[in-house]
């Protein structure tokens, strides 16, 4: 065990525990004190953010791989320890999570209020009366806690436990708190009975989400057990400690048969690919994001799904380097398909949220592409991409949510000319969109270009095909913007109010962050790079060298 376990204040545990406590506390608030619950949740999420920032500051990029490590006995019989530790990648993602949750809470401020949406009609008011606000915010905090701890876990079992457990609160968030827009939309779509239809749609989405991910998780469970069995055979006593296994593999104490390693890898990867999601395991995402409220949708795609891609980096690659290399071609192709396919379907969507969902699928394609390109730029870019995609999608989706909450419909066709009546809303929406199409100067560009370069430098053809993604991205974003925001003003939107203060407070910081990370991503890259280098060294891949040694600046001058 190379890491020094710091005996000091268990910062990482605290970072995960605070939101968990917050969840309990929020849930405990009496039903009448709804507003109190909201503020309490917000306070806890901010506290978490503070802790996350402390972690960010305390983390030394130059230091050893896993820092602020904690290690306690947990379930000796399973060879399981409560082992936490963060590398640069984890730190970045924890920061992202902690950062987004307060905005999500703010954005969802009224999503769980007992009364139905403004235009859902009276009957909707009755059947939607069951909206325990406390529950909503408690669940969000619970998800945050679980996500954070699965970013911190360096014990495969510990990670798995929370990787699976986080499905449950997510499930209730998706199934329990539908979009106020849904009824109107269905009233528009299917004549009448919209309310019921919406409810069924929603629970279908929730169940699909849960079963899909559960199936993935269970297959991973088999692999986890298999891993234990293997380690138990070779090391005498089974273990789940990531570092221990990595070291054992490096030192040759633990060498897996090729077949075994590949099977285990596939078991792990399947679960992560479902979570990420990677084509063709993506179909749960559009349903889930479409049916849930915008903040929850953000929670899914910007926070929870990141666990999948993160786990690919931390577990798939480090535990099974050989198998990872073996599977790389197939995975690259799949991610390529995701990129193009997701983008094309986004173009074809009629529903704003589903459009964003498919866009996300395309982006996850980029992330996975970057991870398995196995180059510094690729993986560094992928990590940045996780963060940036989180922020940009949050910005876009939340603004879309505000839009939807105004009109009460998710259909693109129901909008038009919003730009004239609500310029600020339209402006923020556009910026979110531009970030999504990774316009230079905004954060996502940096990561996307890094991924492309990283891929190109090893797999030129794949890199070029992936580049088509940027054209398609422009297509779906601008089409969306044109159809909703420009053109003659539709009567339904004529009296649409512009962004309110609360909503501005949500969006403005995100946009500022997008700009900052677009112009000066160095702080982030400095944190991430060492971790990426380490991963690559474990996988034992090195960046391809440039064909020619360029003339240095000095000579170039003359």
């Amino acid at each position, binding site marked *: 065990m190379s890491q020094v376990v710091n005996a000091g204040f268990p910062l990482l545990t605290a970072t995960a525990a605070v939101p968990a406590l917050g969840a309990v506390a929020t849930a405990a608030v009496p039903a009448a004190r709804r507003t109190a619950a909201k503020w309490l949740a917000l306070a806890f999420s901010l506290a978490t953010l503070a802790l996350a920032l402390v972690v960010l500051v305390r983390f030394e990029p130059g230091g050893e791989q896993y820092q602020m490590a904690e290690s306690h*006995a*947990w*379930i*000796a*019989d*399973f060879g399981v320890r409560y082992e936490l530790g963060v590398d640069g990648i984890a730190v970045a993602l924890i920061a992202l999570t902690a950062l987004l949750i307060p905005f999500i809470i703010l954005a969802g401020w009224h999503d769980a209020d007992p009364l139905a949406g403004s235009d859902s009609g009276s009957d909707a008011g009755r*059947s939607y009366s*069951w909206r*325990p606000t406390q529950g909503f915010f408690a669940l969000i905090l619970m998800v945050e806690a679980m996500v954070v701890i699965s970013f911190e876990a360096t014990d495969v079992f510990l990670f*798995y*436990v*929370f990787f*699976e*457990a986080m*499905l*449950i609160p997510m*499930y*209730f968030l998706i*199934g*329990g708190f539908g979009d106020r827009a849904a009824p109107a939309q269905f009233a528009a779509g299917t004549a009448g009975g919209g309310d*019921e239809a919406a*409810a069924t749609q*929603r*629970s279908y989405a*929730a*169940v699909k989400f*849960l*079963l899909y991910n*559960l*199936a993935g998780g*269970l*297959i991973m*469970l*088999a692999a986890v*057990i*298999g891993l*234990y*069995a293997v380690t*138990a055979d070779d090391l005498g006593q089974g273990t789940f400690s990531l570092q221990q296994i990595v070291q054992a593999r490096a030192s040759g104490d633990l060498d897996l048969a090729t077949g075994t390693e590949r099977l285990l890898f596939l078991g792990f990867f399947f679960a992560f690919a479902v979570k990420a999601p990677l084509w063709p395991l993506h179909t749960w995402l559009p349903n889930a994001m479409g049916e849930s409220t915008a903040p929850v949708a953000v929670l899914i795609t910007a926070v929870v799904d990141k666990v999948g891609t993160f786990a690919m980096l931390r577990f798939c690659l480090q535990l099974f380097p050989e198998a990872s290399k073996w599977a790389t071609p197939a995975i690259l192709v799949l991610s390529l398909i995701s990129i193009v396919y997701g983008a094309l379907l986004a173009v074809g969507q009629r529903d704003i949220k589903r459009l964003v969902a498919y866009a996300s699928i395309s982006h996850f394609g980029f992330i996975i592409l970057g991870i398995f390109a196995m180059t510094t730029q690729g993986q560094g870019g992928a990590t940045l991409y996780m963060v940036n995609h989180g922020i940009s999608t949050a910005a876009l989706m939340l603004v879309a949510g505000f839009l939807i909450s105004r009109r009460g419909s998710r259909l693109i066709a129901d909008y038009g000319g919003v730009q004239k009546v609500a310029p600020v809303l339209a402006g923020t929406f556009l910026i979110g969109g531009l970030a999504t199409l990774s316009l230079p100067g905004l954060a996502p560009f940096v990561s996307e270009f890094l991924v492309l370069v990283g891929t190109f430098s090893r797999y030129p053809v794949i890199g070029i095909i992936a580049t088509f993604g940027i054209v398609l991205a422009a297509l779906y974003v601008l089409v969306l913007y044109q159809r909703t925001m420009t053109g003659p003003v539709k009567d339904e939107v004529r009296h649409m109010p512009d962004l309110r203060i609360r909503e501005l407070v949500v969006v403005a910081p995100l946009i500022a962050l997008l700009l900052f990370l677009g112009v000066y991503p160095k702080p982030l890259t400095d944190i991430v790079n060492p971790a990426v280098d380490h991963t690559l060294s474990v996988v034992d891949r090195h960046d391809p060298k440039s064909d020619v040694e360029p003339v240095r600046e000095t000579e170039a001058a003359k």
Partner: protein
Amino acid sequence: MSSAATVHSLWTTAAEIPDKIPAPHIEYGQLAPTLIVFGAALVGILLEAFLPRRARYHAQLLLSLVGLAAAFAAVIGLAAGGYATDKARIAAMGAVAVDGPALFLQGAILLVSLVAVFTFAERRLDPRAHGKRVDSFAAQAGAVPGGAAEQAAVKAGFTTTEVFPILLFAVGGMLVFPAANDLLTLFVALEVFSLPLYVLCALARRQRLLSQESAVKYFLLGAFSSAFLLFGVALLYGYAGTVTYSGIAEVVDGTVRNVTPALAGTMGNDALLLIGSAMVLVGLLFKVGAVPFHMWTPDVYQGAPTPVTGFMAAATKVAAFGALLRLLYVVLPGMRWDWRPVMWGVAIVTMLAGAIVAVTQTDVKRMLAYSSIAHAGFILAGVLAATPDGVSSVLFYLAAYSFVTLGAFAVVTLVRDAGGEATHLSKWAGLGRRSPLTAAVFAVFLLAFAGIPLTSGFSGKFAVFQAAAGGGAGELVVVGVIASAIAAFFYIRVIVLMFFSEPRPEGPTVAVPSPLTMTAIALGVAVTVALGVAPQYFLDLAGQAGVFVR
């Protein structure tokens, strides 16, 4: 003693004076748990006989609680006394084993029955009949349903307080079953805990036809299976010339010392051994509820009074699996290569069939019945590990599972409409909106069944699968995983129903239970979470208890 001499002495010694017969040596201390329970049961009978009606309920309740608690204390005492580990021994002239698994399982059974007694004694749920509180048992089991006699009995406010002693008898049998160290004791114990269960099944207050039907089905099939078991015993006896586990094991391993010519003859005949053990297994697999011997389960679970169902589902499984473990690990380890493949098949079929059929169930109790079948499959996977890990993992799983089951059925008793318990799933729609707490608790149990991490279900499943993988049954793990994925579907379905669908206007109401049921449920939740979050202590317990005495 050599056979010929025996047979001869049989006739000669019979004529002598009886006082020469050596009185059997019984270690009462080590058998205390069983004896206490049986004693309490007998006292219960006397109470029934001599106490006035109104006094009986409380007396019986007190008696059973005290008896079970005392028995549990005795188990703890024995365990503390080291009987679980180094001082493990065979008691009662080789009839009963006192060792780790036995004590662990007895402890589990006693705790479960203790909780079960709470649910038995619950009498706040049913609306008062003629101003008298009534429990979920028939006023007069003998009376024809809906007949004049029954109405009179209800009017008189009769209650079947006999259930308590009957329960105690069953518990007593269950205590012996996993500890039985010879086939005769095994058989007798089986009958001793089966017969009371048959009776209990027939005692429902509501829907008595179903209840009686379940009883008759359970009884006939049970008797049928026990006949198989007995014939198997006979064959094994014929094979080994003895019914003690150790004796048979020796013969199987061929390490037997004095081989009589007769024994030499039968020993050679493996057909006896194979067929015999197979038939004994049939008997046990029936009790376990493994496919294809499972078909009684859904009907009986559905028809029996829900408290009984809970008790049966929880305690019977523990006892039966205990006996199965002992048989396979103590008697038949020598022929592992014969029974393992067969049991593989059984385990796989059980896991899959249980999970798949449950998907389309519409009645909560039936659904739970099928889920219990699927779980039996998972446990079998652990049994098949054929390693000490396997034993301890199975013990742990049993402990975890029994409490979840008990809790789940306790919740089922709460959801009622005019016709008594509303067990049809459609009636559970929107329960989460009517009474979030109940729904949440039930959701916890369902998630535990589904094996979601941080619940006892996950720890247990993980332990069992891990043991199976360690024991070289990786394929079983894969099948198990698939089965759990399928199983997850219908647990989730219930949750969806409770939380995400509109409540029916004529939907059921959730009765407010007495502290008794509340404790039962609370205990269930507590154990579920505790074994989910911090299972280490119990795993240690099971680990220490993982060694059989021979």
